[in-house]
């Protein structure tokens, strides 16, 4: 039977490969495992092996062809066998090479080839469920269980090893692009219209790659698939300031840290959010998953990038514990010592730009979350208070939510609750 030779997907984000050369000629006899062809990815040139014994035929790929992954580029035929009229789907060979970045051009990457028929992946129930939730294609995994059975640990390891997986199920380090008025159009968005670049001298060309590319892809995805509702209100922070002053010293003795308004906000959000489940939710596979836990992402600025360390189960932490968790996470974020696991899996994000003097802004939802809270600077503002015009420290909160998951009134109720809580912070006890 004819075996297809395809453009392999050698890393998770690869969509096309550039063909470099055939190492065998059409009509040559090849053995399974013989070096067969070379491709160029954006990371390295990779030599690939023949998936079967037989005769190389039906060669389609030529030098510098940019070929989508899994497209057939040739066949390996048995002696005397004719080329298939159409593609023969029975013998699809999936090539999964370990996603080695920065391999030298000469390095040969071993090809693990296996014939996978639909539904024959050996996988434990929880691993199957997890893969579905994370939108991970199980056929790309090799299980460490008996006879290749895929276990939960395999799925989690795969997820961890693929921070750039385009599946949006993993909120990674990725960075809620906060100043969002001009969305980055990454190379991945192929629909971008061709617009002539300005005729100006170039200072530097920075490739959209790595974390920047992840941010770009996610934000484009979020901005163009999740219809955002943005609602704002102002909160009188007088009592919250008083609360902070009251607990500053005791909590400093207890935790060694100064209580930040971010910590107070985190505590307020974690207290209020359980009453607004549709804002602590994810849209996945036709379902809205309402999360029991609040894994609170805290957008943090690190040099040119923003990262979002996650406080897990924030609903179970008191103010002192949140202060400690925040101090630890932000400190390690700035020293780039966070593990990927600590930067993924958030269910709701808080982004505070008050320290930069920003009074109000709207954020883009950090997928797969369904809402985000943008926090502005506290500004002494003349307001009517008990029949007088007085200066009060007002802070603007803007919640952005995915309109597919929740409606304006839901977001409004959340903001109103949050306002009441922050204005009467003793409710946090």
């Amino acid at each position: 039977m004819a075996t297809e030779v395809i453009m392999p997907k050698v890393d998770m984000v690869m969509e096309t490969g550039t063909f470099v050369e055939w190492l065998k000629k059409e009509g040559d006899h090849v053995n399974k495992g013989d070096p067969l062809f070379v491709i160029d990815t954006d990371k390295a040139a990779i030599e690939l092996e023949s998936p079967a014994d037989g005769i190389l035929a039906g060669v389609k790929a030529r030098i510098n062809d940019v070929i989508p992954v899994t497209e057939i580029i040739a066949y390996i035929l048995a002696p005397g066998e004719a080329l298939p009229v159409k593609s023969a789907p029975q013998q699809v060979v999936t090539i999964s090479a370990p996603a080695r970045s920065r391999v030298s051009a000469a390095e040969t990457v071993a090809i693990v080839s296996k014939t996978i028929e639909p539904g024959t992946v050996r996988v434990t129930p929880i691993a199957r469920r997890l893969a579905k939730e994370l939108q991970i294609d199980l056929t790309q995994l090799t299980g460490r269980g008996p006879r290749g059975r895929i276990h939960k640990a395999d799925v989690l390891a795969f997820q961890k090893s693929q921070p750039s997986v385009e599946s949006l199920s993993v909120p990674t380090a990725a960075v809620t692009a906060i100043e969002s008025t001009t969305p980055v159009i990454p190379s991945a968005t192929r629909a971008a219209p061709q617009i002539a670049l300005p005729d100006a001298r170039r200072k530097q060309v920075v490739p959209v790659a790595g974390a920047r590319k992840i941010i770009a892809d996610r934000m484009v995805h979020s901005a163009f698939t999740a219809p955002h509702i943005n609602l704002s209100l102002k909160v009188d922070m007088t009592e919250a300031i008083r609360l902070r002053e009251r607990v500053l010293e005791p909590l400093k003795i207890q935790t060694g840290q100064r209580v930040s308004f971010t910590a107070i906000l985190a505590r307020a959000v974690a207290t209020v959010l359980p009453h607004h489940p549709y804002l602590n939710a994810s849209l996945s596979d036709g379902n809205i998953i309402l999360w029991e836990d609040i894994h609170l992402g805290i957008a943090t600025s690190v040099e040119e990038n923003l990262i979002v360390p996650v406080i897990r189960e924030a609903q179970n932490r008191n103010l002192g514990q949140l202060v400690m968790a925040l101090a630890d996470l932000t400190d390690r974020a700035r020293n780039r010592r966070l593990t990927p696991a600590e930067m993924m899996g958030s269910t709701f994000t808080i982004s505070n730009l008050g320290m930069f003097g920003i009074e109000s802004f709207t954020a883009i939802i950090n997928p797969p979350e369904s809402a985000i809270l943008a926090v502005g600077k506290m500004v002494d503002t003349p307001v009517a208070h008990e029949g007088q015009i007085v200066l009060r420290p007002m802070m603007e909160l803007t919640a952005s939510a995915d309109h597919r998951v929740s409606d304006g009134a839901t977001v409004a109720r959340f903001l109103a609750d949050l306002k009441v809580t922050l204005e009467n912070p003793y409710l946090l006890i």
Partner: protein
Amino acid sequence: MTTQTTREITYLEAVREALVQEMRADKEVFLIGEDVGTYGGAFGVSKGMLEEFGYERVRDTPISEAAIAGAATGAALMGMRPVMEVMFMDFLTISTNQLVNQAAKMRFMFGGKCSIPMVIRAPSGSGTGAAAQHSQSLEAWFVNVPGIKVVAPSSPYDAKGLLIAAIRDNNPVLFMEHKLLYRLKGPVPEESYCIPLQSAEVKREGRDLTIVAYSIMVPRALEAAEKLAAEGIDIEVVDPRSLKPLDEETIIRSVCKTGRVLIVHEAPLTGGFGGELAAVIAASEAFDYLDAPIRRLGGLNVPIPYNRTLERAAVPQVEDIVTAARALAQEGK
């Protein structure tokens, strides 16, 4: 129940204490069996009880388990609360017609007009060198008979509380006392107390794997868990305590938590109660949490040998549980 009155006694003494306290509290309760009176029971459980309660209430019988079960069933029908003892669980084969066809059926067949509040105490299990006819664990047979409850305590505390609950239950309850557990010591309150029949207990908490075990396999599983803890494998041990009615919820909750389950019993694997447990787990919400196949460890499909080495090899020992649990915990890791 207060802790001040709790002291260490053996499983055997806990069974006796439950009997004595129930007989003092309710004069309808009586003990019937071979050598339960003058001799004090085959294993000494009823030692001293004849002196306190007299021949009427601690009744020695001829060597006929059919007669013991029939007499107990009749007494229960007439409103008494008999506790019958067979010397070895194996001899229940002779009582089976009375128990399965009569005691288990009457309440149903007479439309609830009568009840059969009786307890069948049955020393079970191997490990005493008593060979194939005195070493069996026949719980699976009786679990499969509607109308009979089956209880298999693993500690002195459970033995007392469950026996009192069994005596107060209005249905036939088969109460399995493992012979090797009789000498096991543990804290038991002096006062009378009940453990509801449908209440499993988590005997040890752990994250990596659940062992469901009952009777003698509970202390063995706990010992295995301690050994594996040294290797960094954190095992949860769940004891159903009562096989029927079964507290499915506690077991399922544990498996949801750990994602892996090893079921251990002494009775032969084939047709054993472990199959029932496995099916209950597989059909429950725990299915979606399983990260490895449900595994069972049970006795070999052989009559228990007389030879001590072979006898030991025929049923799961601590090292067998260690090996099976370790392999399961590491599967896919």
